[in-house]
């Protein structure tokens, strides 16, 4: 009986480890190999703070969690800024150096012998010195850590994480700081893992590096993959299964050392087989039901949330001498552009003329080789894409980059600016404010959807939309950023003429409301009917500027492009 309760305690610890690891692997879509290291830091920090400093419960656990989160953040930051595979190698290296430290810094960690004699937790005069007595504490912390992880994934921050996992570029383009998001998820995950470590030490009263090898990370990873990366319940289920499974192996006669290796091999095979046959795990990600929507008053929909600071007719964005070279290729060369508030500017030219590159330069997605860009007279050189979006210049993508697994409403909601719920601290320390904002934001998002005529589809998943509806959603998401300058990359390509007639007024009303609009477009009819002015780009240079009529009547351009 006592042994069964011991297994329950271990399940609680592994629920903490697996759900916190899922925050990184599942929610943030990052792959790290340092979870066992954070588990170890939590265990050692807590044990040392109890024995050598004499702090009372639960201070060692809490300080250990903060300390571990800080180490995780400092170690991961350089890698997260670069992106790609760097986090894997850095976390692998962190795992190696943490174990080396625990073994070698004997004065602090007692070296390979480990720390023994960690005192039991005493609560209300009762020493928690048996599995029965420890189980309620373990269960409490498992529930608490699960609640923290769950709260985070259900918050606006969690929504932004899901968006980032689907498309990182698009998430930058709606004004999110993806490095901050990854860093917060990573640090929080490290802090939660350390709680499991602190509990382990208090439970078995002995810790050594043996418990925190890379194999431990793979064990927890197997739980996450088995349960499914898409939700936290899956990770908890994975932990329950993989803690109990090895117990069954004990009925097979074999030496302990071999049994341990067989166990490891089973985890390895489990990882491969699950990913091959059921990559979504035992519990697949549930698609989130649409929130209850506030009724929108009937009648003409106002242009949503315009805060145009620039009077119509004045220049908002100005680029001078912009160049972008890729090796020997000059994608954009000595390009000048002025965009004016209240007007629609068309960017035309053959494929490969540098139109999209020009957008990338203006919005900070690519640094220019030469030249300057200013917005409202201030230089935006060297600013990150999300900073430029927040300042008021946003762009869409030719290949849409919608968050296709999210609802139409969420696609718009996630793009709204100034959400307190985008910050991890606010999610936990200002829950009422976050909730109140969320209610207001949903109303705003519905307003935006209504403006483009998509409010009926609010609850649909974005990949169920028709092509024309997808194009509308792109417009809605861009509008939701509340940016003053909107750069549309081929917003109307591939649409039927009747659909175009329905979308034209959207652009006109935005311009009339004072927005600065620039669109890349190949269809000359669209340019003629929609744009006030146009720029003809070829081989990275602006060949002509003028009204659409002037460009089309230009004999040289007529020969080159309009024939």
């Amino acid at each position, binding site marked *: 009986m006592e042994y069964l309760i011991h297994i329950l305690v271990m399940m609680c610890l592994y629920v903490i480890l697996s759900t916190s690891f899922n925050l990184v*692997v599942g929610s943030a*879509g*990052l*792959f790290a*190999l340092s979870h066992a290291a954070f588990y170890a830091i939590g265990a050692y920090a807590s044990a040392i703070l109890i024995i050598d400093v004499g702090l009372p419960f639960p201070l060692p656990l809490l300080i250990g969690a903060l300390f571990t989160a800080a180490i995780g953040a400092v*170690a991961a930051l*350089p*890698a997260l*800024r*670069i992106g790609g*595979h*760097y986090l*894997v*190698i*850095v976390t*692998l*290296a*962190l795992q*190696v*150096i943490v174990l*080396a*430290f625990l*073994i*070698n810094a004997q004065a602090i960690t007692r070296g390979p012998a480990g720390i023994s004699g960690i005192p039991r937790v005493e609560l209300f005069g009762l020493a928690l010195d048996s599995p029965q007595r420890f189980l309620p504490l373990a269960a409490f912390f498992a529930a608490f850590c699960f609640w923290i992880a769950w709260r985070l994934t259900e918050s606006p921050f969690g929504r932004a994480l899901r968006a980032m996992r689907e498309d990182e570029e698009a998430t930058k383009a709606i004004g999110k700081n993806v490095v901050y998001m990854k860093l917060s998820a990573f640090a929080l995950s490290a802090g939660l893992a350390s709680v499991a470590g602190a509990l382990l030490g208090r439970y078995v009263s002995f810790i050594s590096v043996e418990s925190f090898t*890379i*194999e431990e990370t*793979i064990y927890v*990873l197997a739980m996450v*993959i088995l349960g499914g990366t898409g939700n936290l319940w899956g990770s908890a289920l994975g932990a329950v299964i993989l803690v109990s499974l090895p117990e069954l192996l004990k009925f097979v006669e074999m030496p302990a*050392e*071999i049994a341990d*290796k*067989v166990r*490891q*091999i089973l*985890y*390895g*095979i*489990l*990882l*491969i087989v699950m*990913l*091959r046959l059921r*990559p979504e795990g035992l519990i697949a990600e549930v698609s989130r039901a649409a929130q209850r929507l506030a009724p929108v008053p009937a009648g003409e929909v106002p242009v949503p949330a315009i805060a145009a600071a620039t009077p119509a007719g004045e220049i908002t964005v100005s680029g001078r001498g912009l160049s972008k070279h890729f090796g020997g290729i000059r994608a954009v060369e000595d390009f000048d552009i002025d965009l004016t508030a209240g007007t629609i500017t068309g960017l035309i030219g053959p494929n490969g003329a540098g139109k999209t590159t020009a957008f990338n330069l203006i919005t900070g997605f690519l640094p220019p080789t030469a030249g300057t860009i200013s917005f409202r007279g201030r230089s935006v050189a060297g600013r990150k894409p999300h900073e430029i979006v927040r300042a008021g210049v946003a762009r869409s993508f030719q290949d849409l980059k919608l968050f296709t697994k999210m609802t139409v409403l969420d696609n718009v909601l996630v793009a709204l600016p100034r959400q307190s719920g985008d910050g991890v601290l606010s999610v936990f320390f200002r829950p009422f404010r976050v909730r109140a904002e969320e209610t207001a934001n949903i109303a705003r998002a519905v307003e935006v959807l209504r403006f483009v005529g998509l409010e009926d589809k609010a609850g649909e998943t974005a990949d169920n939309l028709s092509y024309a509806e997808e194009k509308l959603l792109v417009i809605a998401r861009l509008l939701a950023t509340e940016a003053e300058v909107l750069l549309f990359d081929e917003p109307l390509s591939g649409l039927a003429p009747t659909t175009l007639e329905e979308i034209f007024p959207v652009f006109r009303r935005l311009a009339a409301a004072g927005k600065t609009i620039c669109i890349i477009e190949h269809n000359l009819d669209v340019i003629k009917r929609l744009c006030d002015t146009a720029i003809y780009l070829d081989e990275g240079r602006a060949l002509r500027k003028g009204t659409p009529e002037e460009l089309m009547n230009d004999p040289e351009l007529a020969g080159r492009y309009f024939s």
Partner: protein
Amino acid sequence: MDLLLQLAINGIANGSHYALLAIGFGLIFATTGIVHFAYGPLYALSAYFVWMSVAWLGLPFVAALVAGVAASTVVGMLAYLWLHRPFERNQSPAFVVMIVSLGLFIVVENGIGIVFGTDTKVLEEVTYGIHFVGDAVISELQIAQVVALVLIGAALALFLKLTNYGKAVRAMTDNPDMAAVIGIDTVRISVLVFAIGSAIAAIPAVLVLIKDGATPAMGFSAVFVAFVAVIVGGLGSIRGAILGGLLLGMVENLGMWKIPTEWQSSIAFVVLFLVLLLRPNGLFKGQ
């Protein structure tokens, strides 16, 4: 001064060992984009294969060496075709392929432990001499490590520069999509680099078997150091992998002049961290 000379000799020899590991791992990583964690245990497996051929089957060492390289090549190709390729075909995200490789890592490492036990396996049949340079010692095995690096590095560089397959590998390293567009069979090239990378790994495996013996855990440190060397040197160039490996070996050994031995393995981390902070594209790339 003699200590410093000795440390430098050890550094160059260990660095050559790391560089060889990094060439194989880096070739696979840069060309296919796969972080091949199982590279480590498969490297260990080839050491065990050679040990088994000599100690159990009684093969002459040279025959065992050839068999070891051949076995490593085949196993590497199978790892790609049976394990990685199906996931590539499903267009699984990169981190799924990484987890799968980690799965293979732990299966092979523990499989070795079950079959051969966890004690250190040494090849007593193979002996080598030592020479003195002043008061410093240089062993023939250390010379063999350096010579192996020079020969393999040169051969691979010539292969990549001169042959059609080599040019295809370089094209795929530059841009896999573009390589596919211009008619390169990227699956065939992936199989090829897994074969070459795994064949190369067998050489340092055998040399280290003779020098220190084989243990099941040797794979982890091998793939770790190869990964670090590739990142430090700059992904996608042989020169970077070689220089990254040599640098790690030198820093680790020269560092022992002032730093206690037990911290040796942590030096790699510090080097990696500094490079990521200061020169994220690697030290020896893009000049």
